[in-house]
């Protein structure tokens, strides 16, 4: 996505450094997420991809401090958000600062539109509440702005819809309301946590189109969390693949689809059903064998080892692999990525 040159020097909207999340369960502390590092600039979309339980939703909630706090959960590292010409670390800032940022500079759209809106308040009231909180507008002005927003997200007859209760709307329309709510105060960062997973395919496409449109207009930075690789190819500039709580491969979107290096990413890409892939017609769809390990019992060495076709005893179970840069902007966490890189070059 093209951006004006003047903003090239500005710091990225969000920088995440060494983010780690530990849940203190009855069975002891469980490291749910570790070593998360990324940054995202204005107008950019980062997709975070992974299976269920890979830690992608937890990461998104932790960035806005929406996880249950201590003593249930510890978050370490830095989440630096640029706003109003300054940077705030969302991990360490005060609760009051955090409240000033949530909904104002960084917003989130959740997966489940059916339950994410309050059933006893109208759509308009719920959007206006955020505007009144952050923009200091009065009741009437905030409601007018809410109606504009509903119009912006493509809801027909926004004025009467603003007076509708969530149960009077379809899932797709509720998700549009959620997006309007997230965009209410013109934030610089939008976290979309599987925003289309609960919707019909046609509605999914509409919602994604809407988000792209809004991004083109407002230069919004979007973190798009999904397990749908088709959606990734459609929306993302950069992709971060997560496995068992850590990023295992980060790359520009075209690079990742052309030259996936981490065997896990390759497995994910192969397991996408394709209509055009005639050679495999009649063959079972390849799937990654095994299941995601429990964070309580991660395997020794590479956490993907037991499920990996490239597994080499003595190397892969020796130590935890580090994220290393193989090409510009393309990082992989794999002991054997050099070998895989060479082989993929030969093919």
């Amino acid at each position, binding site marked *: 996505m093209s951006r004006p040159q003047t903003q090239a020097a500005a710091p990225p909207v969000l920088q995440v450094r060494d983010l780690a999340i530990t849940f203190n369960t009855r069975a002891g502390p469980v490291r749910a997420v570790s070593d998360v590092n990324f940054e995202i600039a204005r107008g950019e979309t980062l997709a975070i991809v992974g299976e269920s339980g890979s830690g992608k939703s937890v990461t998104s909630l932790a960035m*806005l401090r*929406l996880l249950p706090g201590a003593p249930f959960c510890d978050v370490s590292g830095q989440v630096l958000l640029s706003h109003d010409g300054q940077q705030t670390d969302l991990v360490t800032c005060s609760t009051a600062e*955090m*409240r*000033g*940022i*949530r*909904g*104002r500079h960084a*917003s*989130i759209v*959740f997966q*489940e539109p059916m*339950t*994410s*809106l*309050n*059933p*006893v*308040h109208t759509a308009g009231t*719920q959007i206006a*509440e*955020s505007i009144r*909180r*952050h923009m200091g507008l009065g009741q009437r002005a905030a409601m007018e702005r809410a109606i504009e927003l509903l119009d912006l997200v493509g809801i027909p007859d926004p004025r*009467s819809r603003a*007076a*509708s*209760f969530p*149960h*009077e709307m379809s899932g797709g329309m509720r998700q549009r309301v*959620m997006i309007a*709510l997230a965009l209410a105060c013109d934030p610089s960062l939008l976290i979309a946590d599987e925003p289309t997973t609960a919707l019909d395919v046609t509605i999914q496409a509409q919602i994604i189109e809407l988000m792209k449109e809004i991004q083109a207009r407002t230069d919004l930075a979007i973190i798009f969390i999904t397990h749908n690789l088709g959606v990734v190819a459609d929306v993302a500039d950069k992709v971060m693949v997560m496995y068992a709580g850590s990023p295992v491969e980060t790359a520009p979107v075209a690079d990742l689809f052309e030259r996936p290096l981490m065997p896990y990413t390759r497995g994910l890409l192969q397991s996408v059903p394709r209509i055009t892939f005639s050679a495999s017609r009649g063959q079972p769809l390849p799937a990654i064998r095994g299941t995601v390990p429990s964070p309580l019992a991660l395997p020794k060495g590479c956490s993907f080892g037991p499920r990996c076709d490239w597994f080499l005893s003595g190397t892969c179970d020796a130590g935890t692999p580090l994220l290393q840069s193989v090409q510009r902007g393309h990082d992989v966490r794999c002991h054997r990525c050099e070998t895989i890189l060479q082989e993929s070059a030969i093919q």
Partner: protein
Amino acid sequence: MTRFLIVRLGQSLLLLWIVSIVGFAILHLAPGGPMSQFAEAGNMTQADMDRMAEQLGLNRPLPLQYVQWLSNIVVGDWGVSYRDQQPVLRIIFSHLGATFELMLASTLIAIFIGVWVGVLGAVWRYSLFDSVATIFAMVALSIPTFWFGLVVIWFFSIELGWLPAGSRMTPGDGSFMNRVHHLIGPALVLALVSTAIWSRYMRSSMLDVINQDYIRTARSKGISEWRILTRHALRNALLPMITILGLQLPNLLSGALVTETVFSWPGMGRLFLDSINYRDYPTVMGILMFTAILVLIGNLIADILYGLADPRIGGRAR
């Protein structure tokens, strides 16, 4: 809505009929009867007594007596009391005010304390406050009302001398403050059980709500925890409580019976107990049917209120 009301009305009438049969049977199964009350007075001959029984219809077979009573009440004749020959309805209405006053006061206390104890217990789950509140609720539910009433009288009236030991007002005074002063003791006693029930229901309802996705959405808007609690959580958590309000009515009425007796409160509960002791059949049956109707109406109102308070049930397509 109309259909709902008609069905509910039919169910209610059926229920009232069953209540009347069971009530009538139990009342007449109890040993003694109005005639033994007259016999105790000692100044009536057997011939007087027989004539009296004939007049009151007490010498007829029981099913016939029931049919007679039922056909009277259907046309609005609730009968007259054996004790003072007053119409039953008039006696009930003259005692109703005192009971309502007591029930209203204790319900307000129970809702106010119970709701907040429940809400805070849910918000600070497993905290010291929550544990103490839980223990208190269990103790309050286990304490017999009559015993607690006696303890309150002993402690606040006899030991401390702060509250009057009974009745609704000082004879000859009857000012507002005097009435409130008399109300405190019995209202607290009657509120005890309901407060405990309210706090438990409210806690579980609130716990249910604060784990909902829309609370997380509210939090993601950056609004304060207090506003999340009052604007987003409380209203949703209170919705199911409206039903509890209706269900609490029988509890309150039976609690009032004991409380009114302990505090010599001139309400319907005490009237009921006195009438049973006197085997005043028309008054006992009258109070029984009257309270049954109250409970049914209370539940109906709770259901209708629920529909009005919850936009999902109201069915207004705005």
